């Protein structure tokens, strides 16, 4: 049992992040870029965590090393963009590392999404075969497990119906059922459980722990700390592409929570602003209605976000953009100073600026949030970026969620029009 199943050594993955979207270029773009690149100022970064911004590339993973023993169930946690998915993609050979090496001792099945390759026109039964083959199952394997899959998915009656007529619940159950019957020695699972209703998630978790008991090695990425704690004895915490912590799940999940639960209402630039730079953020703070920095807000109180920055060279069209994310890294909303003037960009002339906006009361659900801020020329240059600049908490007190137990990522107070009308004639 002490055999190594996964060995990762000095793994690194570098992505190009052009000012333009790097997804794909047309020939013409490649040609123009080749001509204009020498003249293009490389964007310089602020005091952000994404240290390599200036080089136009970003390390999604940097020098990651760990070993997983055969039969171990290991959770991987971290913020959005910490490199979790990149790690799984490299391990499942979807993308290649830039450096480092990985040895896998056994067949690998990866589950980065449920229902990959499902075709809406095909029937349930046909999709079981297609999806199974895509996930790397042999036809014999699928045939052997066919009944169990149909059983698990509870779709016996509709097995010969095209899946486009399925309810979303049935679709998900079937998709997960196929994947759950993969029989590789090493299973890589990414956030599959984030979809579906509570019942579905419970069922999936049950299946996962059953699979785990059969001595399969599992690497399990999730934001669901409850699921992680229940399933995994060991957890690897990735942050900014590096292993932040690797240890028993209780220990790691605890530290992870602690880091996030520490509110940080203010960020200030420590070192003097470099006059060479065209742009620098000086401070960002969340404040209460008395203009005092505060880390905890009650639900019925507005939150003021204040930013100060200095511009040393006129930057036409530069926008100050912010992202408000919750504890799980989900972006709740984004806003930029161009919101005020419609979509047109604002000229930033040389000078010192203070700008602020207000997050209305009765809007954010109770929880911990962070704000990232950046200054950029949309789709072209990034002048500054500070990830997780401030962390604040919206407490349950006074919040609508605590008053009437409503659900939702946001809990806005919506105005209703109500009219009392005479009964319609029968």
């Amino acid at each position: 049992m002490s055999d190594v199943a996964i060995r990762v050594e000095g793994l690194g993955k570098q992505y190009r992040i052009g000012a333009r979207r790097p997804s794909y270029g047309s020939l013409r773009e490649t040609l123009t870029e080749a001509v204009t690149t020498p003249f293009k100022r490389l964007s310089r970064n602020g005091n952000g965590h994404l240290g390599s911004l200036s080089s136009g590339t970003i390390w999604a993973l940097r020098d990651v090393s760990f070993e997983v023993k055969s039969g171990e169930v290991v959770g991987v946690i971290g913020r959005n963009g910490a490199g979790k998915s990149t790690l799984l993609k490299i391990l499942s050979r979807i993308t290649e590392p830039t450096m480092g090496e990985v040895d896998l001792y056994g067949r690998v099945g990866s589950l980065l999404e449920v229902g990959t390759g499902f075709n809406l026109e095909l029937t349930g039964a046909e999709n079981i075969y297609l999806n199974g083959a895509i996930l790397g199952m042999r036809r014999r394997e699928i045939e052997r497990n066919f009944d169990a899959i149909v059983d698990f998915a509870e779709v016996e009656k509709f097995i010969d119906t095209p899946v486009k007529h399925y309810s979303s619940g049935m679709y998900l159950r079937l998709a997960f059922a196929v994947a759950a019957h993969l029989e590789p020695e090493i299973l890589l699972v990414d956030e599959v459980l984030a979809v579906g209703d509570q019942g579905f998630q419970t069922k999936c978790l049950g299946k996962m722990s059953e699979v785990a008991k059969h001595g399969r090695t599992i690497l399990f990425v999730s934001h669901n700390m409850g699921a992680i704690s229940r399933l995994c004895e060991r957890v690897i915490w990735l942050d900014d592409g590096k292993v932040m912590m690797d240890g028993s799940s209780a220990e790691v999940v605890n530290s992870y929570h602690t880091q996030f639960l520490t509110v940080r209402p203010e960020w200030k630039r420590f070192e003097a602003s470099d006059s060479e730079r065209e742009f620098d953020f000086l401070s960002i703070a969340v404040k209460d209605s008395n203009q005092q920095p505060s880390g905890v807000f009650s639900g019925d109180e507005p939150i003021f976000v204040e930013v100060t920055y200095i511009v040393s060279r006129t930057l036409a069209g530069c926008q100050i953009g912010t992202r408000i994310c919750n504890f799980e890294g989900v972006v709740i909303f984004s806003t930029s100073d161009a919101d005020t003037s419609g979509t047109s960009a604002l000229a930033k002339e040389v000078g010192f600026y203070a700008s602020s906006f207000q997050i209305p009361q009765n809007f954010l659900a109770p929880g911990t949030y962070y704000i990232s801020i950046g200054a950029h020329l949309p789709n072209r240059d990034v002048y500054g970026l500070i990830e997780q600049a401030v962390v604040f908490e919206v407490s349950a007190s006074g919040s609508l969620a605590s008053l009437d137990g409503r659900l939702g990522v946001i809990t806005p107070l919506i105005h209703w029009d109500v009219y009392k009308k005479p009964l319609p004639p029968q």
Partner: protein
Amino acid sequence: MEIAKIQPIEKISPSGTLVSEKKDAANEREPLIKIRPAKGWVALKLRDLWAYRELIYFLTWRDIKVRYKQTLLGVAWAVIQPLFTMLLFALFFGKLAKLPSDGIPYPIFAYAGLLPWTFFSNAVTSSGNSLVASSNLITKVYFPRMIIPGAAVMAGLVDFAVAFVILIVLMFYYGVSLTMNFFALPLLITLTALLALGVGMWLSALNVKYRDIRYALPFLIQLWLFASPIIYPVSLMPQKWRWLLWLNPLSGIIEGYRAALLGRTAFPWQALALSALITFAILLSSAYSFRRMERSFADVV
């Protein structure tokens, strides 16, 4: 300031000795899968392809199954396309322009060329667009990527078989009798498919990075139609320039089909040998380039 965090590549990359030392200590087994950053040209990994042969089958089967879903005429489209093109050609090029056709009735002359051409052009078009169309698979699951354009070519074979029925009808109608050359047909079909695969792999891989391909493809196909002896016989070309036509690997193949099916012209062994040579050159170069380019598919598509 933060820039200092990035270390030069040489510093981070593990030294060979360190790794091997550790390996000895941990376990002696050879890993089943080794993942290393690849540099330059890489092996074709045909064994990997063989291991996933069932997926080729399932993807081909899916393409066939889904292709004519929600169409009124269904698989009849496989016939309509070459049949109507043939009728148009027969009217304009046969009747009006009076193009020669090596003594073969023009309609069947054209159809015998259009049959492989329709297969080839559809196969190249669909495999050329296949990777982009399968981006959801590429970013979520591993399997040898060549399977995708490969399955797209294979799926075209069914249409080919259906359209073949019309040819048999035409052969009866014009009283064409079979010759021994007919047995060359499997070879010709294989060659057509391999050529389509070779061209399709190139285009599909380029298409991932440069979406220009999508727009260039119909144009390329149109040019290729006129550069191949489909509307006209090779004999129309002056002897002096004929070699130019033979450089198009499809020329030998199309003439081969005519000789095999209609038996009126001599079997063009020489031209076919050249076609085969060029086809394999294209196939090999595109397979290696594909493997080279496939590394970035998931990041780019």
